[in-house]
């Protein structure tokens, strides 16, 4: 969308007449975006390296650009580096790879041509379909080529020792190619999305796109780019010296490790165990606490109690750990009162109970808020009617109060199930546990202790990707269930 804005800004400043033409013909914006995308992609493909020739064992990396590939294709497949770390070096580039790239460039040239023709409105009403089709066609072709380049065992090339291996073991596709794929997606989608109705709106809302710019930039850099990295890293064997894009692709080996490695399975088991226990703790006690608070009468006292029980939620886990430390460390209150010497913090058996107790202390009061809100909406005449019929307080609790707040309970439960994989609470575990404690190893802490600090970036990214992906499916599913059962959903 930002391209639209830039393009627009550059053309609308000129003549007033042009803005009228612009408003009435969507093809100008459509063709303009397509042209800008195509130009950017062609410049990238021609000027930036496309492949990196590398060898893990000796940490060598040399870039191959488009013209190099062409020379290699014409010269029978051999390509010479003159300035590699090992002096002059000649490698074989398979013709298949070169042809894939050549086709990509030709497709981009076609997209450029289509975009330019469309600016001048030569096709009339058909240009939306044409530009969209070429753009998305280029996108699909590049995706297919990408998969072949990083995973196909059929395409062979020789490595530095003259041994023939799969292409992707010696050559890596650079980020340039991924950017081109994205450009094709943007160009194609914009072409399809632009019609005469919203061209006018694009002009009308140009300031709004400016408003969106900071947010869009932040999302692209700090949300979308890490997602892309997460996907790519999980398919790579990351070696620091080679960088993210220079490291070799290794297919699904990282994901296989997750399901085979006994350590990994234990970590996933731990995550599920702790999450389920925390989920139970975070749902059931607040329900009863809220009901009791609500039924206790004495409104002023209740306000005071509410003020107090919400406080711990505003403390960080560091502070909660500090307070817990004051109670349970070997010199702490509990040991001093019983004159004992119990090492609760170092005891692995006490680890999970300690997590749960501190979690209950911190979040139980806060958890009542939603239920309190639901309880105030219960019609008091229901209670009165039940009381006249002779129902005692306990009976009313189970037959009036609980059923009337069921939607809230279902909603919170369903969302908690959706967050199960993320819900182990790594901040708390990192404070209360330690790296050597087996119970303390959940997915998130593993990623920090083993993935980040021991530089197992590829496996770490694969684990995160797996966790996030399954988590996403669970939240989507649970949200749909919640919508269906009680009509409440997150978004």
């Amino acid at each position: 969308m930002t391209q639209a804005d830039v393009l627009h800004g550059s053309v609308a400043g000129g003549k007033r007449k042009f803005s009228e033409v612009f408003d009435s013909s969507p093809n100008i914006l459509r063709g303009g975006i397509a042209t800008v995308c195509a130009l950017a992609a062609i410049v990238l493909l021609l000027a930036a390296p496309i492949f990196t020739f590398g060898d893990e064992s000796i940490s060598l990396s040399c870039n191959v650009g488009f013209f190099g590939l062409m020379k290699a294709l014409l010269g029978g497949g051999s390509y010479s580096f003159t300035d590699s770390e090992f002096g002059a070096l000649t490698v074989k580039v398979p013709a298949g790879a070169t042809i894939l790239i050549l086709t990509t460039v030709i497709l981009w040239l076609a997209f450029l041509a289509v975009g330019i023709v469309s600016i001048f409105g030569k096709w009339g009403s058909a240009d939306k379909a044409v530009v969209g089709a070429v753009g998305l066609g280029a996108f699909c072709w590049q995706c297919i080529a990408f998969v072949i380049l990083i995973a196909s065992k059929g395409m062979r090339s020789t490595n530095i020792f003259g041994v023939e291996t799969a292409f992707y073991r010696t050559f890596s596709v650079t980020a340039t190619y991924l950017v081109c794929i994205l450009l094709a997606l943007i160009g194609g989608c914009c072409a399809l999305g632009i019609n005469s109705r919203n061209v006018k709106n694009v002009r009308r809302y140009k300031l709004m796109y400016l408003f969106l710019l900071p947010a869009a930039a932040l999302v692209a850099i700090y949300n979308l780019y890490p997602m892309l990295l997460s996907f790519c890293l999980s398919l790579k064997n990351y070696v620091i010296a080679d960088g993210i894009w220079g490291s070799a692709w290794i297919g699904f080996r990282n994901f296989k490790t997750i399901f085979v490695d006994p350590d990994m399975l234990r970590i996933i088991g731990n995550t599920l165990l702790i999450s389920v226990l925390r989920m139970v703790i975070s749902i059931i006690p607040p329900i009863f606490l809220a009901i009791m608070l609500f039924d206790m009468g004495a409104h002023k006292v209740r306000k005071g109690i509410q003020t107090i029980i919400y406080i711990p939620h505003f403390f960080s886990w560091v502070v909660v750990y500090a307070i817990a430390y004051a109670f349970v460390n070997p010199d702490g209150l509990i040991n001093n009162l019983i004159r004992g010497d119990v090492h609760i913090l170092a005891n692995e058996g006490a680890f999970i109970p300690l997590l749960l107790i501190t979690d209950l202390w911190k979040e139980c009061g806060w958890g009542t808020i939603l239920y309190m809100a639901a309880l105030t909406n219960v019609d008091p005449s229901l209670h009165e009617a039940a009381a006249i019929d002779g129902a005692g307080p306990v009976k009313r609790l189970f037959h009036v109060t609980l059923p009337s707040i069921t939607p809230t309970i279902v909603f919170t439960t369903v969302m908690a199930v959706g967050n199960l994989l993320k819900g182990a609470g790594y901040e708390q575990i990192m404070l209360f546990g330690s790296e050597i404690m087996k119970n303390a190893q959940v997915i998130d802490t593993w990623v920090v202790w083993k993935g980040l600090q021991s530089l197992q970036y590829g496996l770490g990214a694969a684990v995160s990707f797996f966790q996030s992906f399954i988590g996403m499916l669970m939240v989507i599913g649970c949200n749909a269930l919640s919508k269906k059962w009680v009509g409440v959903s997150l978004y």
Partner: protein
Amino acid sequence: MIKGKSDKAYQGICAAVAILFALICLYPLLYTVFLSFCTEKEWIDSSGAIWYFPKRPTAAAYAKILGSTGVVLRALLVSFERTILGTVLGLIVNVLAAYALSRRNLPGKGVLLKVMLLTILFNGGLIPTYLTIQSTGLIDTVWALIVPGLFSAWNVLILKQFMEGIPRELEEAAEVDGVSVFGKLFYIILPMSKAVLSAICMFTIVGHWNSWFDVSIYIKDQKLWTLQYYVKVNFDNTSGLDQGKLDFLISQGAAVSSITMKMALTVISVLPMLIIYPFFQKYFTQGVYIGAVKG
């Protein structure tokens, strides 16, 4: 409502449980404060079994922490810096985005909302995020703690929802009077979304103040430690980071024990939250919905 005996008993039980829970919430806080005022002599004399306010309280620990070392004050400043900058810049970014997205028939709105939803549902994970922050050159600057969290899809969604509920007639009337877009934003939209803005503001402040994990990952420079992380370091029993810890103050002859120093530090680190707590109390219910998913 007619009240029988059983009703009164039930109310009594409810009140008792609620009050008991409130005491459980309150006592650990009080205990922390008690300890932070305890002299070393009293601590040793009672062999640590102090569960009440010390008989001869001393503020020596506070004086020592705030007076004789710049470390804590510096950490406090960094904490304030990240909290204020993060909240103000975050509000600007998110309000602008939400206002743009609350326009009806904004071309591309659907796609943008879907992308935002994706950022809520799926995240890149720690390692890719770390690499991104590294390659944007933010490691070991205070911006590593601020910039990546500026945009919050959840806050934008909530704000957008709220802004869409503001009657269009108000804005149209202003347009007739020749009010600019910024005028509309400042004089109509923002005043009307005060409640939801305050709730978002509150959670951003609390989130920034309380976070320590990002400091542990992105910050190596001790000068940029936030207070929460400094507290965390002081409770670590790993050696190697000793030069930054409070312990050396004790060896300089403070008449308080190590635990008292630590508790005083803890109290200092929660004090700002306790101070702003009453101001934000009325926005809690709204806040729950904001915090529900972010956790």
